């Protein structure tokens, strides 16, 4: 559904995106994670057709997005700071979106607005930041998009609103096979909703994978050897793709790239007297993958 190939973008001397490739399947929810300044928002804005690529292509449904209103009609973008005409009323915004987005469904907006308790005559500047975010969701979903782009979508929402918003998104995905590309720092919530994940760093896509594969590709293992002075762990380290290692007495904790069973078998073959494989969260994978001991 979304195909990004060799996308590059520079702001003066800063290369925000450097040959990014990304593939998002139709009907999937794709989580985009990365440290600050990795280029996530820039990538989303390219997919939304806001920015013009310096190099590379951004296609949605097989067609380039830039300056292509037909493609952009099928895309709704909710940035982290959604722009409202502050003196406008909720009704005015509905009419504006209805006049610009051909697929905009006013009845659907009315339903969503009713769910969140918006008064049509209320001016936007009287809404709290969280309510403005909810309003942005209502407008985006009422446009009946094939692709929904969300940048830090849950910031400023209370737990109940988060639940409601995520529920609406999941519902649209289930009913209409809507594709969602979401960027967030809240990796625990991404784990709950995403089926694919891409990790970005310094303007590049470090890896993109199915979430289950991703989580299966890393293991955190606690291991102890009969030898006292660390000879055992020194022996296995060269044979493993170790992202992180810690030692407490005779107990070593290793974060290793690879399947759990293979790692466990290797450790036992090398004489480990204690092996305990622990599940690794997306947050931990992100921290270790981007090489960020400093992120801990």
């Amino acid at each position, binding site marked *: 559904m979304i195909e990004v190939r060799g996308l590059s973008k520079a*702001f003066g001397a800063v290369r925000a995106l450097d040959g990014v490739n990304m593939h998002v399947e139709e009907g999937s929810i794709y989580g985009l994670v990365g440290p600050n300044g990795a280029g996530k928002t820039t990538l989303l*804005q390219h997919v*939304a*057709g*806001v*920015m*013009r690529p310096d190099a590379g292509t951004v296609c949605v449904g097989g067609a380039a997005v830039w*300056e292509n*209103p*037909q*493609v*952009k*009609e099928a*895309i709704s*973008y909710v*940035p982290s*700071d*959604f*722009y409202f*005409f502050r*003196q*406008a009323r909720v*009704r*005015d915004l*509905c*009419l*504006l979106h*209805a*006049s*610009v*987005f*051909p697929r*905009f469904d*006013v009845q659907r907006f*009315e339903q969503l607005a*009713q769910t969140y308790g918006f008064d*049509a005559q209320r001016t936007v500047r009287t809404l709290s930041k969280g309510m403005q975010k909810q309003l942005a969701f209502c407008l985006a979903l009422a446009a009946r998009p094939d692709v929904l782009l969300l940048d830090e979508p849950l910031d400023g929402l209370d737990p109940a609103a988060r639940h409601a918003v995520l529920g609406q998104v999941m519902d649209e995905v289930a009913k209409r096979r809507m594709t969602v590309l979401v960027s967030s720092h809240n990796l625990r919530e991404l784990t709950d909703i995403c089926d694919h994940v891409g990790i970005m760093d310094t303007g590049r896509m470090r890896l993109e994978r199915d979430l289950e594969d991703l989580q299966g590709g890393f293991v955190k293992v606690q291991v102890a050897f009969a030898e006292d002075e660390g000879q055992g762990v020194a022996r296995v380290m060269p044979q493993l793709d170790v992202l992180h290692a810690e030692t407490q007495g005779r107990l070593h904790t290793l974060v290793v790239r690879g399947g759990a069973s293979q790692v466990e078998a290797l450790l036992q073959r090398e004489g480990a007297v204690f092996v305990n494989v622990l599940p690794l969260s997306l947050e931990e994978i992100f921290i270790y993958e981007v090489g960020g001991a400093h992120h801990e």
Partner: protein
Amino acid sequence: MRWGVPIMSDASFLSPGLFKSSLRRFWPLWLAGFVVLFLMIDLPVYAVASQACQLAGSPAAQASMMDELWAVMGLLGWLYAFVGAIVVAIVLNDHLFDACSATFIGSLPVRRGTVFGSVLAAGTVVLVGLPAAAALLMLPLGAIPGSALGFAAVARWLAVMAAVACVLYAFALLACHLSGSRAVALLLYGVMNLLAVCLEWAMRMLVSALMYGIDAEGMVFDCLSPAVWLVQAATGWIGHPGLSSPMMLAPYLLVALAVVAGSYVLYGRRNLETAGDSVAFEQIRPVLKYLAGISMSLLFGSLYRLISHIDMLDSLPMQRGEVAVLAIMMVVGAFLGTLFAEMIMSRSTHVLGKAWRSGLVLGCAAVALVATCHFDALGIARHVPQASEVASVQLDCDYRCRDLVVSSPEGVAAACQLHSDLVAYGAAGNRNLPNYEIRLTYQLKNGRTLVRSYPVLSDYYAYRAGERPADEGAWLIDALAVIANSQEGRASRFDAVFGADYTSWKLQVEYALGDGSYASIELPLAERDDFVQHALRPDLMDEPAGDVFDGDMGMSTEDYDVSVYVLEPVHLNTNPDDYTVVLSLWLSDERTPNMVAWMREHHPEIELHPSSGWRQ
């Protein structure tokens, strides 16, 4: 809850949704603009139009008054358009200055051209619609008998205002599209308009200071300043009945279209992420930097001229030492201008490394400009037209000799010779002497106009009185007097009086009574033509009364204590008693024999007492 859905339009250059929201969002601002326009235009028009009704018996005076009123209205309307254009452009283009707004607009399923077209249309509707509303409120005045405010006049005003607003809005859009900062957009708009006026003024002043004979008032740098050009065109056109054809709007609209086309190209190439940046295109940086350097250089030069020379526009050439200081000031200005511009664009004070090269280039250019002008390297100041290429020459010298135009071969040859003598003279001499400004305005046969203005240092009347045996520039004034006192010179100088329509003028005679008091009479309309044709004209054309520079500007004991005034009404001032003096003469047997004889024949009641002595 049913809110209704507007019908989508397929027009690719206009999104009805964006267009309507642009108009609706800022309606309080538009209302404020209308109130300002009403107070600035409609109310004064009401007031003057109602006063013009009092002049209903004098159609010429009324028409003249209304013409002057419309010229003022043109200027005020231009001020409204000048401020309104940039305000409208900035508020409607907030996506060029605000990153959130840019993201919103960029994500909408419309082409860039559609956004451009919608904003352009909304701004044009506002800038044309508000004057149209103001004009509608003027129309009822047309129904008042004798108000001289017809539909055609209002429509003409509206057409000009709309055209000026369109051009200025196009410039404002261009300024907005070049920048991502509202402050820089305002600065750019100023650079293109107001700053250009200052540049024009500074260039005129400096060139006149450096190049002997180059007239400060007559030079045309209007191409630098769209605003100056527009205001001159607008006020001139409104007051000019000969240019009432709607086709005269075509140049305005062509300029607007050209600038809009340039803006459209820029907008299409602009990246929306530049919202918030000082400049939207890197290529603008050197332009702004050099423009700031040039402006500051000229400003510093002008300031030096202001400080060193109180009467800045008198054209007295600078001394060599002054020229050196001027050059240094301009170099310093060039450096500071580029430095400040770099600071603004880089948002940093650590820019010396970037700015010094451009400062050096501009400094050298300033020195070259000063040297070129001072030494007249291009020969502009020394150039005297050939008599054969001149259609006519107007010569003016202070208030003593005005509106003197010669077009005969002899007259033109004499004027060209005077010009050559002035160039050779070079204003050398005692600078403490009074300064006469001889101004020559050539109409060349190829349609061009050439203006030169030369200061002549002379205590001329002391020289004529024999108190100064050899005065430095007196011979040049003598040469001018020969041209001015020729039959052709006299005819042209008094053409305004002889050719006037006297219906609204006054011809007044003031005379002394035997007891030392004064009385006056106004010649009735029936006598005016006879007086002008048989007394005033012969005296001015053939007698010493028509001379200029005759050595005596006051009344002597040979004159009678009787004076004749020719008075023209002040049209814009609604007080019917306000007149301006066109001509005043004391009667004497030697200087005005025809007027003395006419008075004796037609008004024997006027006593012709000899004057008691010299007075001015």
